[in-house]
């Protein structure tokens, strides 16, 4: 039997080209397999073979979505694959978005099975879980060994058009697809059973999970900027020299509150970034590129804004959980409210 032809997509890091300083590399293709593809290819045994690997820098892909997608797609197409695999991306946000975007595109354009894998909090999940199968991974590459066998066996099922089980059975993230099944008991009986369990505070499983809408209402617009107190917040990890609070370069366990009374310019004040998820050289050279203090001080002088709040809040957004980010924001927002801050400018890298 002919071997199934697989094309694999990875980022600059997993290709061994480099870290953040290489995140802007353009797409390139290499025959055969590399990085996590070595493991995948081994597990495919004789059934399938990775014939080509496409590599693209995470920043390049996300900053040039459409062009990057088209370039990567042409490279994938050139191998005439039967199956496309992207990642695993774990908790790397830009990588996850790239994997999801390109997998969706390949599925639509080439009509072949596609598969990617990432951590459930990766923004790529919210964006693409409905479109493509995403195998759930842990939040770091430490879960590589567990996830690769899941990916290969599931990918082969997809290619062979075998029956796909539920997300729990197969290990993929729910796509919101409902399938009709026959059950022994009628709906009324099942509903009452569920209610009884609920009343007894026992575990029960709903047959129709409600979608979660957790967006917040937009805050009311400011009437008069010249009287407004504006605060600066960043997920770009800008900290005073030496990172006094020791905010971690990824999965930050804290945020910092930094006094900027009398400070007019973060470049001059030698602020730097603690963030490990982007090339820090530009921020270290001039932190105003992340936290625009210089311009806001000018505007304060010119009376365009009422005043700049004299504390800025900073954490590292790299791999930091949604739960923690929310907790940090809720904490410092109490202070913002107490000090009558009217609006927030939040910058992200």
């Amino acid at each position: 039997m002919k071997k199934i032809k697989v094309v694999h997509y990875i980022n600059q890091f997993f290709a061994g080209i480099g870290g953040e300083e290489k995140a802007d590399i353009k797409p390139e293709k290499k025959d055969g397999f590399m990085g996590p593809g070595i493991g995948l290819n081994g597990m495919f045994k004789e059934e399938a073979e990775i014939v080509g690997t496409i590599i693209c820098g995470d920043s390049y892909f996300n900053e040039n979505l459409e062009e990057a997608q088209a370039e990567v797609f042409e490279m994938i197409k050139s191998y005439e694959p039967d199956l496309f695999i992207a990642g695993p991306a774990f908790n790397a946000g830009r990588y996850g978005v790239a994997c999801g975007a390109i997998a969706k595109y390949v599925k639509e354009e080439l009509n072949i099975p596609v598969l990617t894998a990432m951590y459930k909090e990766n923004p790529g999940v919210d964006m693409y879980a409905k479109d493509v199968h995403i195998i759930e991974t842990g939040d770091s590459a430490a879960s590589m060994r567990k996830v690769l066998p899941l990916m290969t066996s599931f990918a082969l099922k997809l290619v062979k058009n075998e029956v796909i089980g539920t997300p729990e059975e197969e290990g993929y993230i729910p796509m919101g697809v409902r399938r009709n099944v026959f059950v022994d008991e009628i709906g009324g009986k099942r509903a009452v059973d569920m209610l009884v369990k609920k009343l007894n505070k026992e575990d029960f499983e709903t047959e129709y999970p409600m979608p979660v809408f957790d967006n917040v209402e937009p805050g009311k617009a400011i009437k008069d900027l010249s009287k407004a107190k504006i605060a600066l917040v960043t997920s770009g990890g800008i900290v005073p020299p030496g990172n006094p609070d020791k905010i971690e370069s990824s999965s930050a366990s804290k945020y910092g509150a930094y006094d900027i009374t009398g400070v007019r310019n973060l470049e001059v004040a030698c602020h730097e970034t603690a963030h490990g998820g982007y090339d820090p050289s530009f921020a270290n050279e001039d932190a105003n590129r992340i936290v625009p203090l210089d311009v806001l001080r000018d505007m304060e002088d010119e009376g365009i804004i009422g005043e700049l709040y004299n504390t800025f809040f900073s954490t590292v957004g790299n791999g930091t959980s949604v739960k923690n980010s929310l907790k940090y924001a809720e904490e410092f927002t109490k202070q913002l409210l107490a000090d009558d801050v009217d609006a927030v400018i939040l910058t992200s890298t």
Partner: protein
Amino acid sequence: MVKGIEKSGIPVVHICTVVPISLTVGANRIVPATAIPYPLGDPTLAEPEEKKLRRKLIEKALETLTTEISEQTVF
């Protein structure tokens, strides 16, 4: 973080490069930035030009804060 702040009623403008991620995390007022490692700058420009670029982005951000919106909006 955007949601954590904005649910208090304080309006937030999110300046960021990867707009789809901003939409996913639930920012309401969004201003697209220059690039991931330097959202509010451009190291290829001379310093006065770079500051002008930053000022433009901030002016736009402040404008969004004075604009009433009812849903997620990319300015």
